[in-house]
């Protein structure tokens, strides 16, 4: 495939949606089939930014994202330190606890927490009421929103910081120790300064992720009347008639904030490359933290309970309870109070089966096609001297700075305008997810291609093979682990995605995430809970299958 074709592909995948958002923000009409809506240029749409709602949404977004990322960093960082650098018991378990919540979509986590800590009927409130303490919990509040976001973004912090901590050259710390540093001194003068760039980098990343998060904000924030920018955009699009131009204007603001934040992150991550010394076969020193081991273990188990155990129990109860309303815990222990009827009902329903089939099909296609595209791009950028390869890289990384919900909007307009019979089919979802996750795929592939010495491939060419043959005989087999990890990562991300699909699905192309979200929106909590449980099982099954194909754990970063 020649480079110009690749450029054209990226232009349609990424540049056109972005351009359409920009155009709509400055126009009085939105793109339609046959028109990109470039009539009537105006600044009118930006008036909405000075409205009370916009200002509140922006403030809420900033407050929520800042607090949630600080809390997530604390949780993830502590777990990473425990697992990577201390003599705590059961490190493998701590590692598992650190990444396990990744397999639970934040959408499902939010649903579970509204079941657990909804103001009157949450299971935790039933419990405290049962023992005479009254209603103690209300998750539909600012702290509740921050808490749930932090729970489900802590694993990203965990992965990044864990990576930096295990890659650290032990000689650096040993040198400090030889020169007379105590444990505390070593930590404060060598260890933490060395991982600071990684910590800052992941902090900014999590800020961006929580800032653009739609599902949690919608499911926890909206009932509590806390609006953030993504939910504001969604509401504008869903009002009748849809206020697309104003939504685009808000989207531009959200994107500008995220581009600024991402730019900072890229700089910090660049610096990180110089500071962490990676070494093969070096074992980092394990620190003896003595009595703190118990505290650490309790912390990890507590997090596990909050992020996984309680939510899964809540989902189970909600899908098993026979009566939709429970006002007293004792009702759950009565005769016939629990039954598998609803779960089986869901399992057999056409809605679930169609959505499961769609989700799996989309995820597999996104993983395979996305990985292939990402490989080809990385190859052009890192292995050829094609002019303009740096701009290819720039475009490929662009979606990183664009919120998924905004990309979804842009992709909606793109495929409405383009004269291809794609809109309304499952293909548009595949295209959208490939576009949104191209940065993750590209990053995984290029990290992996950079680890394979170019000489290895060149020597095959000198020995008489064509370039393509050399790639398949030498480069790809040596990249196997990296390729499989990238495929698995894309599979997981596509399986979980909701925001980008919101504007693109139709009644025939619903995904599991959409079904859960719709059920919740319509108040069908039992159905939402049973679908969620099955959703988790489908994800787990996919992971197990993919691993059987040879992929290692998602040790790549999600963003």
């Amino acid at each position, binding site marked *: 495939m020649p480079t110009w074709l690749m450029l054209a592909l990226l232009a349609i995948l990424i540049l056109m949606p972005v351009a359409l958002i920009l155009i709509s923000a400055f126009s009085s009409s939105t793109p339609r089939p046959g028109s990109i809506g470039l009539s009537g240029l105006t600044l009118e749409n930006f008036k909405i930014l000075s409205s009370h709602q916009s200002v509140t949404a922006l403030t809420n977004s900033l407050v929520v994202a800042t607090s949630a990322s600080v809390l997530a960093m604390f949780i993830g960082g502590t777990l990473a330190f425990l697992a990577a650098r201390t003599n705590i018991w059961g490190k493998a378990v701590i590692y598992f606890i650190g990444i396990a919540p990744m397999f639970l979509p934040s959408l499902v986590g939010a649903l579970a927490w509204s079941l657990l800590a909804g103001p009157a009927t949450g299971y935790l409130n039933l419990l405290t009421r049962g023992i005479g303490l009254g209603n103690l919990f209300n998750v539909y509040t600012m702290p509740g929103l921050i808490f749930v976001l932090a729970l489900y973004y802590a694993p990203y912090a965990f992965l990044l910081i864990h990576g930096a901590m295990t890659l650290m050259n032990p000689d650096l710390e040993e040198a400090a120790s030889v020169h007379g540093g105590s444990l505390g001194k070593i930590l404060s003068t060598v260890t933490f300064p060395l991982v600071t760039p990684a910590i800052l980098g992941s902090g900014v990343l999590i800020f961006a992720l929580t800032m653009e998060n739609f599902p949690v904000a919608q499911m926890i924030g909206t009932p509590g009347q806390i609006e953030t920018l993504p939910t504001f955009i969604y509401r504008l699009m869903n009002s009748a008639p849809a206020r697309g131009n104003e939504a685009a204007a808000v989207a531009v603001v959200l994107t500008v904030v995220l581009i600024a934040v991402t730019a900072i992150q890229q700089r910090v991550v660049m610096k990180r490359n110089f500071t962490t010394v990676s070494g093969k076969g070096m074992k980092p020193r394990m620190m003896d933290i003595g009595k703190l081991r118990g505290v650490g273990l309790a912390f990890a188990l507590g997090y596990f309970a909050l992020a996984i155990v309680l939510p899964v129990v809540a989902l189970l109860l909600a899908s098993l309870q026979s009566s939709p309303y429970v006002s007293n815990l004792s009702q759950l222990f009565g005769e016939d109070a629990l039954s598998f009827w609803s779960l089986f009902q869901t399992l057999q329903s056409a809605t679930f089966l169609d959505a499961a089939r769609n989700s799996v099909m989309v995820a597999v296609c996104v993983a395979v096609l996305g990985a292939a595209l990402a490989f080809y791009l990385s190859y052009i950028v890192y292995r050829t001297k094609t002019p303009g390869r740096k701009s290819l890289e720039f475009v490929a990384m662009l979606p990183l700075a664009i919120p998924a919900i905004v990309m979804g909007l842009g992709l909606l307009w793109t495929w409405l305008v383009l004269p291809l019979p794609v809109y309304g089919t499952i293909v548009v979802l595949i295209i959208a997810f490939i576009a949104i996750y191209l940065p993750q795929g590209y990053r995984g592939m290029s990290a992996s291609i950079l680890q394979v*010495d170019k*000489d*290895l491939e*060149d*020597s095959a*060419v*000198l*020995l*008489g093979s064509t*370039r393509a043959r050399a790639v398949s005989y030498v480069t790809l087999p040596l990249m196997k682990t990296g390729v499989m990890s990238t495929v698995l990562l894309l599979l997981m991300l596509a399986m979980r995605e909701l925001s980008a699909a919101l504007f693109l699905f139709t009644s025939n192309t619903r995904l599991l995430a959409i079904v859960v979200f719709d059920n919740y929106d319509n108040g069908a909590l039992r159905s939402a809970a049973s679908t969620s449980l099955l959703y988790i099982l489908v994800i787990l099954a996919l992971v197990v299958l993919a691993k059987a194909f040879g992929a290692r754990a998602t040790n790549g970063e999600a963003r």
Partner: protein
Amino acid sequence: MKVTLENIDLKYGDTYAVKGVNAEIEDGHSLVLLGKSGCGKTSTMRCIAGLETPVRGRITIGDQVVFDSEKNINIPSHKRNVGMVFQSYAVWPHRTIFENVAFPLQMKNLGKKEITDRVDEALHLVGLDGFQKRGASLLSGGQMQRVALARSLVMRPSVLLLDEPLSNLDARLRDRLRIELRALQQKLNLTCVYVTHDQGEALALADRIALMQNGKLAQVGSPGDIYENPASASIADFLGVTNIFPVLKNGHPGTYKMAEHRLELTTVDYTLDGDAIKACIRPEDVIVSGQRPDADSNNWAGEVSVASYQGSNVRYLIELDGGPAIEALVSRRDGPPAGKGNRVWVTASPSDIQILPAEVA
């Protein structure tokens, strides 16, 4: 086969890595590209292999023009029949040794039997008989080097390129492989281009040496030529001449004056003039004695500041009175070594002092 490079220019971005390189390698000869790290040796070699595309020039292998910027000829690497041993060896870690070495033959679609025979033969040549089934990731540096060599030899290349093939090995192994490589090259009558930054290696392996500086060939000649008559002081410096002093013509015919000291040097050759000329004296040509010798020129007193025993030789650093420090390499046979602080006399024959321009013009 004979290889010719004509006016090769190679650019990375806006900077020239190779500029105006002309070289000719006779069939069956070895040319060593010698120069400091970063001077463009690897780049030149990659041009011959077709891994880099020069912006100008012509490259001929045998009677085939493989690159010509004017005629737009650029034969791709895999059709040039050029063997190359990479500095990193580039042995494929996920394949066995047999698979590594058989690869070029499979690319030529040879029969199974012929492939097996030729792989065995190549492995025998490099001393790895019986290693066929081993995985390549478990080899030592020296063994990898041999596999890389066998993999290139097996294709019977028109020209074999070797990029610092010994630089990753320890000193003893390096010495042994240096001799083996030269023997193999002569036995197989291979046309070789060999890259190194080590002058000892260059002298041992070359039929001709091409000295590279800043992307250009500064001097080309036989090892003896280059060693005896370096074209500039910086080349002399690179070849291990440690006594290099800036000098000026001082009026008396046959003598130069040190630019930074008042000492005079008598030389045989008295043509160069200017402010960028230097006197070069090899440490082994500096004579050290306890008494004042009866030579009537180049006769200086001084004090030993460092004496370092090196087995068969002693290396001295001597501070000349009113002059620079000079290094001398004295054979153990020439009497008991002087110690630090001893007063000594230093002389050098006028014919051993070379007056050279600082750089090649």
